[in-house]
């Protein structure tokens, strides 16, 4: 899958949007402006964007507690997302879901999820819909190294295989589940597990947008053609704590700084495309400015926005009751 200039600019813009979104949420959380459990995706941008840049309206994704990046990559509106994270009435979910339940079904984003391992079963269902209706659509489940040990995830590998569903399982292995190392918690290996359930798989460097994009492209292609499920093991890192407030004492000294210097997917992308003469630094700088403005506006708007109306407490439980 060759990417043209527009594709590259678009992917960069999306990665930058995720990065700025998370950096600003981090700031405002520290300022006490944002309530609840907030899990940031900064550092993992190349995974969500490398995969989702292949997707369109036929396709669905399921996410995790660390869902902002997947939402943005699947096209959710940044303003509505920020309003949601602030718990405002005009938020993407009316302020009722918050960061951990942010979703946009119209965009094929089946939701962030507060339950580790809950996405894969759901995505099998979205894949059944696509397969039954012969839309050529695929369904992608993103989950972490920790989520790869949840029985619901492992069962889904088998169901997707047995039902020959157009599913891509993306293991975003950022090295930790909360404070627990994936080197400790994952017996065997992600790829051997895929083999165990009869799925093809690949291991890619999740800081390299192009590596993710290429591997995901093959799998999505195969799935669209009826070739069944695949597993993509993406090695990457998170720049912030498990959730906001995490002191990260379990991480090695200087780990974060080193990562920000050497494993920043945006820096790597920029260097790659400029050195190859595909894009210019100016083009990217302009995007940086535009994105920063967009995200800052969304913060300003969110801070001023109103909470949900009191009646909203008891609405939306059922379609009819």
């Amino acid at each position, binding site marked *: 899958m060759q990417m043209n200039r527009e594709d590259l600019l678009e992917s960069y813009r999306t990665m930058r949007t995720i990065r700025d979104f998370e950096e600003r949420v981090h700031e405002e959380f520290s300022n006490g402006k944002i309530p609840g459990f907030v899990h940031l995706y900064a550092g993992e941008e190349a995974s969500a964007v490398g995969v989702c840049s292949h997707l369109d309206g036929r396709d669905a994704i399921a996410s995790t507690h660390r869902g902002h990046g997947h939402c943005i990559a699947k096209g959710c509106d940044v303003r509505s997302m920020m309003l949601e994270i602030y718990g405002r009435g005009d938020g993407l979910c009316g302020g009722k879901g918050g960061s951990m339940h942010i979703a946009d079904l119209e965009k094929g984003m089946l*939701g962030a999820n507060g339950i580790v391992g809950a996405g894969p079963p759901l995505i*099998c269902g979205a894949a059944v819909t696509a397969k039954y209706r012969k839309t050529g659509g695929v369904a992608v489940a993103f989950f972490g190294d920790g989520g790869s040990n949840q029985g619901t995830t492992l069962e889904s590998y088998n169901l997707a295989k047995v039902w020959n569903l157009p599913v891509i399982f993306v293991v975003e292995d950022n090295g930790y589940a909360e404070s627990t190392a994936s080197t400790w918690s994952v017996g065997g290996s992600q790829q051997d597990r895929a083999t165990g359930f009869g799925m093809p798989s690949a291991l890619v460097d999740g800081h390299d947008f192009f590596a993710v994009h290429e591997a995901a492209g093959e799998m999505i292609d195969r799935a669209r053609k009826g070739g069944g499920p695949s597993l993509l093991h993406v090695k990457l890192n998170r720049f912030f704590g498990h959730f906001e407030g995490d002191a990260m004492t379990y991480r090695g000294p200087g780990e974060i700084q080193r990562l920000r210097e050497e494993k920043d997917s945006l820096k790597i992308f920029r260097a790659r495309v400029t050195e190859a003469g595909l894009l210019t630094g100016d083009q990217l700088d302009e995007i940086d400015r535009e994105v920063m403005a967009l995200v800052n506006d969304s913060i300003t708007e969110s801070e001023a926005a109103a909470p949900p109306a009191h009646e909203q407490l008891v609405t939306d439980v059922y379609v009819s009751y």
Partner: protein
Amino acid sequence: MAKKSYRQAINEAIAQEMRRDENVLIWGEDNAGGAGTEGESDAWGGVLGVTKGLFPEFGPDRVLDTPISESAFIGAAAGAAATGLRPVAELMFVDFMGVCFDQIFNQAAKFRYMFGGKAVTPMVIRTMYGAGFRAASQHSQALYPVFTHIPGLKVIIPSSPYEAKGLMIQAIRDDDPCIFFEHKVMYDEEEEVPDDPYTIPFGEANLTREGDDVTIVAFGRMVQMANQAADALEKDGISCTVLDPRTTSPLDTDTILECVEDTGRLVVVDEANPRCSMASDISGIVAQNAFKALKGPIQMVTPPHTPVPFAPELEDAFVPSPDKIAAAVRATMA
């Protein structure tokens, strides 16, 4: 119109809805009769044959077998429903909810609320419940109070073949997640069931019998037990109202309160264990909202706070009986 069994009524309801709406698919263990075997196709149709005949008519795209992976295939029903299909998934015995409850109570049940009213999740989970089958502690529970506790779920407990067909069609057409409780002991019970499709609305209690002295509220298989008790009491000049709420969520609170206003006495018959049960639930609602009408203590008739025993003699003593119900009615009048 012909006599049909509870099993046939459910099967017919699903078949008619599948003919009407191509978005209706079914799946569950052995629902297609067992995939990949060298023997007959449609061999089983579910463990007790409820879905038999659907595979030959609707084929492998709409009638799917599953591995023994309830979280995956019940969750798949939620995901398929949220993306436009209307799946009817089978959780063989409700006792198995423990391996897949998250997909039911945190996912399907909460999508609409968490997503600010933007999700529609039209799915039905068919599941077997109830004691009397000599199936012991892990295949005989009721558990509908657990589902009733969860906002976002609708809970249906058909008490006869006629009820089962109308409520199943309603459930399939309903836009919320529905848990449909089938009593395994009732599958062979027969009554007149219309051949044409029909629906029975949720949240409208069925007044199976009208009386002056005591209101008996009963669920599922307990409705017939309650009516048997009422027959016996009739002879002693005690006349009972027997109310079948049909669904525990939504619950027809108005009719229950009206009946209690009329009779002034209440007995609730519940096949579930007693703590935090439907017996508790109805009692609380009445004690809060119809207190002044009550002439005597509410009586709850339930099994004891124990698992379901295997030995037939113990199991029979576990399940509420017409005698126990009659005794409770007398106690309210003492």
